[in-house]
């Protein structure tokens, strides 16, 4: 009887064990392994000649890597800022007791259901000067209209921003809309009685109350930006030249096509450090309060 009970007690942990073991191996084990490879002379295949921090020294000396980081800086900050501003703006507009809300909201949100490869394909041709927007404007009689960003080394990265914002801003809108719907009506009524204008109420009361939503949106968008890979592959392939290279595409090409696995691994570790420095403090502060339903 006693042994049966012991066995019964162990069942829940035995059920959880395979999942946890898989995650320990595939996530934390893999992080250690990649971290180890980043300290070796691995080229086309993993090899175990220890070279210390040599790969990191090489990595930070590569203009290509700096280009990827600069692009991530431009792309990431514009992506986060535009998605947040646009998301909040749309949420506020939709929150004005709009009759067609049930019709409009899904339209704003559906891009989130698409693969970045599909988004990239659609925008690639839409932004293409030959058949896309520029051509359309010319045919409509606006002959001097030029829009060749996607072919321009200095401007192509902004095309990635345009497509990424299109895909994600509706989702940020949904987050803000849920936040706005959660604001206590009493506070707003009290402010209205005090004679505050709608503008003032939003600026002084409602938007400050959205702080947790801003934080969540920031964390989600920042980690999506750092992980961005598919969209660049489909939209520009990293080009023209290296104009839209991001750390994720850099890692892939150094590891699998340029046979510099050691450098590829070290760039993956840098990406991990960037993401963890955003995610860990966030999860820690979210979980500290214990589970919420």
């Amino acid at each position, binding site marked *: 009887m006693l042994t049966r009970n012991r066995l019964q007690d162990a069942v*829940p942990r035995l*059920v*959880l064990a395979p*999942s946890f073991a*898989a*995650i320990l191996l595939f*996530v*934390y084990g*893999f*992080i250690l392994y*990649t971290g180890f*490879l980043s300290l070796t002379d691995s080229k086309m295949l*993993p090899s175990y000649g220890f070279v210390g921090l040599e790969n990191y020294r090489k990595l930070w000396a590569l203009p290509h890597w700096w280009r990827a980081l600069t692009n991530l800086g431009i792309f990431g900050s514009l992506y986060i800022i535009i998605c947040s501003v646009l998301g909040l703006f*749309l949420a506020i*507009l939709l929150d*004005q007791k*709009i009759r*067609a809300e049930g019709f*409009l909201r*899904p339209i704003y*949100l*559906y*891009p989130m*259901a*698409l*693969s*970045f*490869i*599909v*988004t990239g*394909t*659609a*925008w690639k*041709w*839409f932004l293409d000067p030959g058949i896309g927007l520029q*051509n*359309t404007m010319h045919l409509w009689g606006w002959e001097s209209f030029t829009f060749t960003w996607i072919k321009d080394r200095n401007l192509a990265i902004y095309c990635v921003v345009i497509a990424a914002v*299109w895909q994600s801003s*509706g*989702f940020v809108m949904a*987050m803000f809309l849920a936040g706005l719907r959660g604001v206590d009506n009493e506070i707003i009524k009290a402010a209205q009685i005090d004679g505050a204008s709608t503008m003032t109420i939003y600026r002084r009361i409602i938007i400050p109350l959205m702080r947790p939503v801003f934080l969540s*949106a920031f964390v*989600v968008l920042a980690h999506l930006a750092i*992980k961005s*890979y*598919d969209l660049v*592959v*489909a939209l520009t392939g990293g080009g023209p030249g290296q104009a839209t290279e991001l750390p*994720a595409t850099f*890692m892939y090409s150094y*590891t699998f096509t340029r046979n510099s*696995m050691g450098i590829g*691994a070290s*760039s*993956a570790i840098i990406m991990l450090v960037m*993401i963890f420095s955003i995610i860990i403090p966030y*999860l820690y502060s979210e*979980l500290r309060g214990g589970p*919420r*339903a």
Partner: protein
Amino acid sequence: MSTPSPDNAANINKLARGLIYIALILFAIYYLLPLYVMVVNSVKPLSEIREGNMLSLPSVLTFEPWFTAWSTAQIGVQATGLKPYFMNSILMVVPAVAISTLLGALNGFVLTKWRFRGDNLVFGLMLLACFIPFQIALIPAARILGLLGIAGTTQGLVLIHVVYGLGFTTLFFRNYYAAFPTELVKAAQIDGASFFQIFRRILLPSSGPIIVVTVIWQFTNIWNDFLFGASFGDFDSQPMTVALNNLVSSSSGVKEYNVHFAGAILAALPTLVVYVVSGRYFVRGLMAGAVKG
């Protein structure tokens, strides 16, 4: 200047609402435009796209591009169309979604109703796993799949997607079951019900909504994945996203935009259908994925 009469105020109000509606409609057009471009140009002959306006309706309606994309287009080295890859995606997505959802439900049950010392640490490590940049896993995952003898197979991709989906599915069910009355579980335990009996008879029957949310989330993510499919798939296992990218970026011959657009819609169709049918749950999944704890 007189103070605004009530009539005047009502007019200003009407004007403001009119502006809001105009802004909302303009944004709806912005979100719909790429989809419209894809659909319209997928039923035009190629000559009409090259010489005509991307935004205009087809003057000659043809479904040829759809048939080409589906069954005869050149993908990589073979002229198979997207059909076999669509099947690959289905064969990968269905088991991966089913297994990761079931495991997530069991894990959530354990983590909320069978608490043990260290359970929060276990959960924290599983949750953190949701956010890692997959670049960190590419090199070791390739080796593990090779060691297991499932490199380049659908089973290999299923394994990868199950493991990297576990964090999210566990999170969804944990948060849902946290609100489930623990007394019911305790009472069943006293009556002598086993772990699995309680799970099947008491928890599962009331898990409908969260199962839908999880299945949609996993389906969308796995169907839309590109990185793992491109890294670990070969002809017999590459998913739709990889095939679409190969179709669009193949440099040989004429660029058949209409075929590309038809292919992009085919790749997007399953997730779009899921979104249209169950948008409410889709949004809920997104929010649950964004707002932790």
